[in-house]
């Protein structure tokens, strides 16, 4: 029955609109607006398209990124399909959906997880705990941890030499972090650092195609599915009172006096099961099941000895502290799950954690509570040659990170932060200075952001989805639904009065052959950024900011609010509400296209309803063309009141 339900859900998810559908559906309000404005400017919606061959195509480009570059308006439906793919308490369904979109452009078939043989499946373990529900959870975990994941990892990375594996542990990791001392380096040192990074990327490109990421990710998703099912069954039995944790833990089989406990299920090295009291865990674990209490986890992981990690905590106000990188729902050359079913928790990572997939699959699932997520780099839904997901289903949550976080992706990666309910705070930045552009601003690379290494490695897909609540988003340089180099960055916020604050390259923005989209369905929202934001595409890129409802306020300085730069496309679309648009430099904003390569870019500013206020180029009930190549705007009542005063 469960399998049938799951299958039907997956089928219904796969029937959701594909990434290209929005351009074929002029009936949506935003598409009608785009049609009206492009017609006014002697353009066509299909003009919003990029060629795949402006530069040589690398072999690591994701097919979904490629397709959306060909038809960027498809981002609108694609973002909605990701938002709608989530089924409560079943993160594995969303994970499967994302996995589908992690195929390379050149990939004709997808790899699968290792299928254990009948004898491997029937392998018997010595039972320590005799409760059947617990026994089932432990035996299934053992099959995944001891057989499926290690063999899937071998299928994924087995073609690599020892030296190449070391390269992934060390040099490749350097591409995803910044050192604070870099801001003090000399010009020659920075130049050689840049060249070294490019060299790492080129070295990687020589053997990267030998990596088959699919088996690890697929095995991780399978493990998540089974662990969530079995943990759910066990919790249900405890909640219904049919069993209680202390009883479960006290039911033990016969253990001879001189027996080696490590051969018993649940007592293997790296395995531990805790009761309902406040427990302390310290070290590099493979499996932890905790029945409750306010627990403290000090976790570590050694990438040179990769293995799966499963941590299941049934409740309590827990503190998870990273003692090394690659912990707390982190899949590093393997899969890592952290499933926490209740309590106000604190997740304090270093780097590469809190739902991070680094050549692997990482899932952090938190069902309830007001939680705090902290850490440095590559965390809170981050993926590189892997899938990293952080799902928080409810509560008033706080997310803080320095860099590469909160729905971040690098090459062949998908990073997703999915928050279902609650008034949440997102902050990323403040640590690593953007020495290239400023003396007083910091990189964020976060909140629905993806990046590739130009021009050698395409990026992936970074997404932040927040379904409801009054949320605050804050980044500095590069963040909030933006991307760099053959990637996709997106934010989809459903309901609530939200505040988006950034400085540059943000809020539906793309720089250098890439796409970014921010969709906010409802609520009175406030957007602030200095520039290259709020619907801005630079250098064959497309940035879209689509706000479907509410009385919103947009503030920017320049090259924003529907600005196309260097043959890019920028769109700002506001469907309903009494809005205010403020811009400091109207000469390159609110429907602006910048001339480059002897032709133009496209900037489309569209407001389809409400009584609006402008500092800039627009006015209520107005069509305009800016003195640019090529852009303009409309502010109209798409559905004007009829003679009775009613609107559609």
């Amino acid at each position, binding site marked *: 029955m469960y399998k049938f339900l799951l299958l039907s859900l997956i089928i219904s998810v796969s029937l959701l609109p594909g990434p290209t559908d929005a351009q074929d559906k002029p009936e949506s309000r935003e598409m009608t607006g785009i049609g009206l404005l492009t017609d006014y400017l002697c353009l066509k919606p299909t003009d919003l398209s990029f060629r795949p061959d402006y530069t040589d195509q690398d072999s690591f480009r994701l097919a979904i990124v490629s397709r959306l570059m060909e038809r960027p308006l498809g981002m609108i439906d694609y973002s909605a399909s990701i938002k709608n793919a989530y089924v409560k308490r079943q993160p594995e369904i969303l994970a499967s959906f994302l996995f589908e979109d992690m195929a390379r452009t050149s990939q004709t078939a997808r790899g699968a997880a290792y299928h254990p043989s009948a004898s491997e499946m029937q392998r018997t373990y010595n039972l320590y705990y005799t409760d059947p529900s617990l026994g089932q959870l432990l035996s299934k975990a053992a099959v995944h941890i001891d057989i499926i994941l290690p063999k899937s990892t071998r299928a994924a990375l087995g073609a690599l030499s020892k030296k190449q594996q070391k390269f992934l542990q060390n040099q490749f990791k350097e591409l995803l972090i910044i050192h604070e001392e870099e801001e003090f380096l000399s010009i020659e040192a920075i130049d050689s650092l840049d060249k070294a990074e490019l060299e790492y990327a080129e070295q990687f490109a020589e053997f990267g195609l030998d990596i088959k990421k699919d088996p690890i990710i697929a095995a991780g998703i399978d493990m998540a599915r089974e662990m969530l099912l079995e943990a759910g069954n066990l919790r249900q039995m405890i909640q219904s009172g049919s069993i209680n944790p202390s009883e479960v833990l006290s039911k033990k089989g016969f253990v001879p006096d001189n027996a080696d406990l490590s051969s018993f299920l649940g007592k293997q090295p790296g395995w531990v099961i805790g009761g309902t009291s406040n427990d302390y865990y310290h070290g590099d674990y493979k499996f932890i099941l905790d029945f409750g209490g306010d627990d403290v986890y000090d976790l570590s992981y050694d990438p040179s000895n990769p293995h799966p990690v499963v941590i299941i905590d049934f409740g309590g106000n827990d503190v998870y502290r990273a003692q090394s990188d690659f912990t707390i729902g982190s899949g590093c050359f393997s899969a890592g799950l952290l499933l926490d079913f209740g309590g106000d928790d604190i997740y304090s990572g270093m780097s590469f954690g809190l739902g991070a997939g680094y050549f692997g699959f990482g899932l952090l699932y938190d069902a309830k509570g007001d939680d705090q997520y902290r850490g440095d780099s590559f965390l809170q839904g981050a993926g590189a040659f892997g899938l990293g997901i952080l799902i928080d289903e409810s509560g008033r949550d706080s997310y803080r990170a320095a860099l590469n976080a909160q729905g971040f992706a690098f090459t062949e990666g998908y990073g997703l932060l999915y928050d279902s309910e609650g008034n949440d705070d997102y902050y990323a930045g403040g640590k690593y200075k953007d020495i*290239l552009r400023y003396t007083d601003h910091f990189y964020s690379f976060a909140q629905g952001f993806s990046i590739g290494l130009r021009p*050698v490695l395409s990026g992936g897909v970074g997404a932040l989805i927040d379904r409801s609540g009054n949320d605050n988003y804050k980044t500095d340089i590069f963040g909030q639904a933006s991307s760099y180099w053959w990637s996709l960055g997106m934010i989809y916020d459903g309901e609530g009065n939200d505040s988006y604050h950034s400085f540059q390259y943000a809020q539906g923005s793309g720089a250098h052959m890439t796409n970014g989209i921010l969709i906010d369905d409802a609520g009175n929202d406030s957007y602030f950024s200095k520039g290259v934001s709020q619907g801005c595409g630079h250098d064959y890129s497309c940035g879209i900011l689509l706000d479907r409802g509410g009385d919103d306020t947009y503030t920017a300085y320049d090259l924003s609010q529907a600005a196309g730069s260097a043959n890019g496309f920028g769109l700002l679309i506001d469907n309903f509400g009494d809005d205010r648009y403020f811009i400091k430099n109207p000469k390159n904003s609110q429907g602006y296209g910048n001339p480059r390569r002897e032709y133009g870019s496209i900037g489309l500013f569209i407001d389809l309803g409400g009584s609006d206020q402008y500092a800039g180029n627009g006015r209520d009930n107005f069509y305009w063309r800016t003195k640019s190549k090529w852009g303009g705007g409309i502010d*109209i009542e798409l559905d004007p009141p009829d003679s009775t005063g009613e609107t559609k």
Partner: protein
Amino acid sequence: MTSRFKYVIPIWILVSLFAGMTCLSANAQTYTISEIDSVFVIASSGEVRYRDMVQPAIDSLAAMGSDIVPQLIDKFTTKSARERLTIIQILKKIGSPSLQYLIPALSRPEPLVVQRVCWALGDVRDTAAVNPLINISSHASWQVREKAVDALGKLKDNRADGTAISSLTDSVGQVRKAAAVAIGRLGTNDAIRELTSVLGDEFYGARMSAMESLVKLDSSEVIWVLSDSMISANELVGHLACRVLGQIATDEARDILLLQVETGSVRRRAHAAVAIVASDPEDQCGFHQQILEYERDRLVRIQIESAIKSADSER
């Protein structure tokens, strides 16, 4: 230390290096790769703290003269956009003496280098490059074709007319765009009919560039051809023709537009009406209210009213 003093020492080093190199130049000495590289790193730096040193470094490299051009061409394989732009800037400053190396480099096997050499030749603006550029304008790489046609337009030499016209039908939109731009620069009146058909091009860059180039050509001939194009099956041709006529802004152009505001096509009426306002922003002919009164479509009326308001606010 104030920001001004921060640059004193590095610039002093740069100047010393440059002075040394000038001496070397006097002895017909070629520069070593490392000597050029050390200045080039500064010239192509994008960092805010080294910004004041970039232009002196570019000037220093340009002052080394054409001897360094072969090494600059080798650097065209760079994957850095900033480095690529820096090389173009230096070559532009060196000017015509760089052609002795740039023209032979058009036969290099790497399309990436060749397209960038074309770009440099366009920016150096020496017509000695016209025939070599024509010769590679049918290169297999569309990027090379685009940059070659683009450079020919910049050189403004009518020997390139035929190449520009034939490139209007290239299979790649970017090349057709380059051809449309080049025709405007070359002033190729023989291409008006071909250019008009590009108003309906699938690629917006070609379409819009054709519109802008038509305005630069012989207006009486353009009006004649555009008048015929109003009935084109491809509606975009007529719509953009209205824009061109609005910019030409003669009585003959307006007469054609006035006919268009009476058509059954809502879109065509909108384009024609807005073009009429653009052609006579001060409404000396008194058409503004006339076309507004005639129009019943709500959105077309808003477009006309917007055009009138814009014209008023620009006065």
